[in-house]
């Protein structure tokens, strides 16, 4: 252990320098005077005594140095000196230092930004305690579709789940749409019924009041009427009233006491839907529960999965109606969907910013080498008079460290702004609860980057410059031309930089091409002036199939009679252009009568009214649409799209064939009403044109349209085509609904179908790709051009005298031009060739990570052209300086 006194003297020597120096000097003076006095006492004259004493002892400032050396501060002082010298020499060459620092700042800023984005959205997105051990379970029915179902279980099953070996605790919840009553217009409130362990399971402290506790939901008794508000609901409904705790909220005609407000970052449970309020769960509130499972420490997913599958088999025996026979459980960490969706994107972005950082580093290396060339003489003299190589390397390395520290300081500030960009461009693609902050890991990461970058760009020049060829350098003085090997190194660096830049440019070109493809998609329907509203249906109001069908029809007619409304269609679920990102397409199997095919035939089933096609302007190609009476009956008819017709009847006519859709049944589910013969044979009566129904990024899937009355759930949608701006009609539609049925709630699914296109996740994803890649590629291009320009300028400056002599001897300008450009041109073309070759490889990688990207040779050609153009413009000034050399002047100034 270091004694306190040691630390004390270091502290004083470093931070109270003057006082310590004074002390040393006073002590020394006392010593000298005492010695002189002794000499006087022994008979030597006063003046002589003082002189002798002083000579014996030496100078006071030397003593101060000795003091510092004695307490071991010398290395520190030397490093301090190196830092000061580094700063000074950076300041002396302001221009190139600024270029070096900015090159690094851009690279470090971008890398830190993407790192903090990855940190915030993939590594630490959730505010929950032990979020990495929380898993989500979904039921996957292999027979039906790729759509996972929520794993809803009954309370008894919930209890046995809690007793499983691999499980530490289970949080149960269920979402339910409630209505706020007691106000003028009933408002939609999404409630989450949560078991009493919410507080301990999630470990999030409320912003106000308290969270739900076990005593709110006692076993075997009805749970208490208390409610915790989400931040968003508190802000919107109560304007963030700080005294809200204790007040009442009336939901479905019963009063709930507000006991707390959750913090802004808490939006549980976004995996299913956002809740406005949290209410303690009780069997009086909902019969089922969806579990969120926290695994025990050290339990792997495979172990937990095996145990849960056996539990599922047991549960299926107890409650067969909850679980389809061939379904399995899919257990995955709550972050899994985001990893699946974004990990590739983010890694690709990270790769590209690392490239950018490397380009910045190469730039710094070039500048340091060029600067070192001018300092060769100084370094050679230092070596000649005995300066150690270690000290020279250390000094040069500290100079690079100073550059990268300055770069990092600017870069981190930059990254804070840059990291928010993707979240703003594509909010729905990331966990809502992720928050981007400058935190310790991010700062540590950027400090690590400082050392990494200074090693990368600083070490090579330092090692190289610290071993000068003494005799050569000192003899040649400043008349030297640049040594051949150094010029070679610079050209290799330039080539490297251009290769890296081309990789980035290639990635940018690919993503731009993919984005253009998305934006220019033929939709197949007309999204202009179209809005979609969702209508949750109350079971008790529409008890049977007939009542529900006529209720929907009545509501549709009420809306279609409104002024400004052109047409209204019913569509149970479809929201054009359909699903995007991930396997949520609702393709189900169907049978064709008389077909012997063993293959599973899949199609998207749309439950719509006949007005659907005219409302969205989807043309009828052949046959007819079903009429009103067929629509009321729901059975026996179907319309298909062109893709389906062509796939199954490539020759001949689809019309007249019989098909059967097995899944059009309610399976005794109380919430679903099916027509009497919904799963029987249907005749294809018409073929309509294709429209996008499987997302913007996929071609239209085979589709079957059947009357919506075939299968009605507790929810339906109206697609409204308005004469003018659809937003303006929302109020009138709401009023009309209210007068038709005062308890009918309405959800605006899309307030403007055309405007919602850019909000499609796939659209946003490609936009983020395009914006970021183009931005990074642009930066890379700029950095590479700076590197190119500085190399050329340096080469010209070093060879001015040689060029002067050549011109004096009669060299033509074109010849001079050729001499200057020769090596650089070979470096540039080498870089381009390697870059283009590598692009062929990376494109395969890009296609793997980037959904729907495509090869774009013409884009690459354009990129090459742009690069050559920029390079020519950049090279112009130094080349001009070279050809304008005046031989008389250059020769005279030596």
């Amino acid at each position, binding site marked *: 252990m270091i*004694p*306190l*006194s*040691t630390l004390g*003297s270091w502290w004083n020597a470093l931070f109270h320098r003057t006082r310590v120096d004074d*002390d040393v000097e*006073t*002590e*020394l003076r*006392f*010593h000298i*005077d*005492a*010695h002189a*006095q002794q000499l006087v006492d022994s008979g030597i004259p006063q003046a002589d005594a003082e002189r002798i004493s002083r000579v*014996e*002892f*030496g100078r006071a400032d030397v*003593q101060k140095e*000795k*003091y510092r*050396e*004695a*307490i*071991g501060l010398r290395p520190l002082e030397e490093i301090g000196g190196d830092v000061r010298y580094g700063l000074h020499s950076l300041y002396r060459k302001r221009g190139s230092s600024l270029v070096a620092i900015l090159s690094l700042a851009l690279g470090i800023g971008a890398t830190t930004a993407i790192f903090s984005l990855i940190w915030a959205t993939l590594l630490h997105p959730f505010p929950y305690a032990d979020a990495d051990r929380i898993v989500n379970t979904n039921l996957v029915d292999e027979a039906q579709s790729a759509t996972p179902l929520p794993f809803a279980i009954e309370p008894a099953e919930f209890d046995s789940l809690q007793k499983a070996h691999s499980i530490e605790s289970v949080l149960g919840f269920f979402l339910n749409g409630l209505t706020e009553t007691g106000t003028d217009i009933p408002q939609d409130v999404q409630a989450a019924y949560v078991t009493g362990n919410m507080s301990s399971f999630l470990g999030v402290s409320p912003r106000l009041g308290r969270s739900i506790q076990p005593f709110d939901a006692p076993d075997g008794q009805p749970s208490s009427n208390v409610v915790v508000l989400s931040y968003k609901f508190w802000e919107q409904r109560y304007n963030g009233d700080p005294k809200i705790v204790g007040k009442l909220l009336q939901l479905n005609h019963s009063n709930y006491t507000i006991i707390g407000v959750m913090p802004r970052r808490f939006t549980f449970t976004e995996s299913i839907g956002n809740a406005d309020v949290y209410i303690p769960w009780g069997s009086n509130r909902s019969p089922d529960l969806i579990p969120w499972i926290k695994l025990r420490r050290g339990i792997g997913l495979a172990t937990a999965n095996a145990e849960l599958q056996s539990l599922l088999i047991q549960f299926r025996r107890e409650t067969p109606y909850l679980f389809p026979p061939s379904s399995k459980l899919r257990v995955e960490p709550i972050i899994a969907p985001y990893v699946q969706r974004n990990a590739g994107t983010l890694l690709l972005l990270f790769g590209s910013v690392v490239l950018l950082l490397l380009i910045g580093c190469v730039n710094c290396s070039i500048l340091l080498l060029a600067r070192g060339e001018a300092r060769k003489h100084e370094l050679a003299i230092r070596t000649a008079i005995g300066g150690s190589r270690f000290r020279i390397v250390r000094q040069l390395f500290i100079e690079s460290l100073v550059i990268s520290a300055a770069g990092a300081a600017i870069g981190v500030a930059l990254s804070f702004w840059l990291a928010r960009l993707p979240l703003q461009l594509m909010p729905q693609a990331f966990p809502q609860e992720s928050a981007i902050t400058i935190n310790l890991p991010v700062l540590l990461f950027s400090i690590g980057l400082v050392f990494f970058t200074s090693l990368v760009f600083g070490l090579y020049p330092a090692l190289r410059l610290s071993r000068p060829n003494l005799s050569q350098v000192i003899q040649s003085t400043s008349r030297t031309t640049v040594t051949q090997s150094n010029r070679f190194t610079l050209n290799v660096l330039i080539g490297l930089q251009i290769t890296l830049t081309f990789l980035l440019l290639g990635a940018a070109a690919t993503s731009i091409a993919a984005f253009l493809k998305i934006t220019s998609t033929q939709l197949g329907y007309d999204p202009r002036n179209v809005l979609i509203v969702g209508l949750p249906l109350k079971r008790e109001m529409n008890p049977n199939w007939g009542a529900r069908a006529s209720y929907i029809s009545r509501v549709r007619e009420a809306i279609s009679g409104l002024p400004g409304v052109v047409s209204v269609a019913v569509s149970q679920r479809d929201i054009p252009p359909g699903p995007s990102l991930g396997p949520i397409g609702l393709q189900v199997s169907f049978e064709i009568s008389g077909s012997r095919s063993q293959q599973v035939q899949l199609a998207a089933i749309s439950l719509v009214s006949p007005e659907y096609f005219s409302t969205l302007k989807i043309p009828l190609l052949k046959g007819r649409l079903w009429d009103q009476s067929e629509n009321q009956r729901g059975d026996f008819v179907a319309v298909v799209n062109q893709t389906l017709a062509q796939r199954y009847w490539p020759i001949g006519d689809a019309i007249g064939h019989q098909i059967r859709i097995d899944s059009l049944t309610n399976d005794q589910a109380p919430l679903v009403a099916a027509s009497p013969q919904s799963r029987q044979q249907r005749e294809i009566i018409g073929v309509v044109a294709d429209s996008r129904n499987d997302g913007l990024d996929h071609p239209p899937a085979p589709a079957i349209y059947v009357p919506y009355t075939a299968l009605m759930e507790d929810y339906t949608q109206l697609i409204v085509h308005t004469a003018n701006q659809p937003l303006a009609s929302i109020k009138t539609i709401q009023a009309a609904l209210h007068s038709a049925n005062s308890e009918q709630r309405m959800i605006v699914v899309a307030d403007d179908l055309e405007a919602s296109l850019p909000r499609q996740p796939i659209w946003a994803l490609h936009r983020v790709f395009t914006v970021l890649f183009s931005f990074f590629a642009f930066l890379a291009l700029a950095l590479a051009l700076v590197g190119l320009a500085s190399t050329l300028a340096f080469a010209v400056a070093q060879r001015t005298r040689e060029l002067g002599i050549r011109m004096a001897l009669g060299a033509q300008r074109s010849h001079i031009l050729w001499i200057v450009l020769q090596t650089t041109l070979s470096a540039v073309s080498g870089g381009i060739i390697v870059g283009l070759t590598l692009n062929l490889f990376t494109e395969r990688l890009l296609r793997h990570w980037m959904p729907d990207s495509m090869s774009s040779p013409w884009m690459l050609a354009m990129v090459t052209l742009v690069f050559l153009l920029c390079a020519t413009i950049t090279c112009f000034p130094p080349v001009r300086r070279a050809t304008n050399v005046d031989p008389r002047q250059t020769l005279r100034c030596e």
Partner: protein
Amino acid sequence: MNKSVDLLQGTLEILILKAVSLGPLHGYGILMRIQQISDGRLQIPQGSFYIALYRIEHKGWLKGEWGESENNRRAKFYRLTAAGRRQLESETKKWSEMTDVVQGILSATPEQI
């Protein structure tokens, strides 16, 4: 640094500690006391003396405090700390063992082998 200086520095440190253990002194006084005890046979190089003194103080074996000298001048007086006393004891022991061994070797006669 060559070896003989190292040895001298080590030795000098014990001498300084010993001199101060006899009573608090200022730097010049320590030098004088060592020379006086050695009867002037030991000439201490003035430059290395202070380096040794500073290092000992830095290690916490001596504590320096400002006070008044006999002719009323500001001077830094050093006194032994507890750690310094322990160091002096162990160094003295080491030193006497060392001199015993060296003495034994130097006084060896052919009969002993």
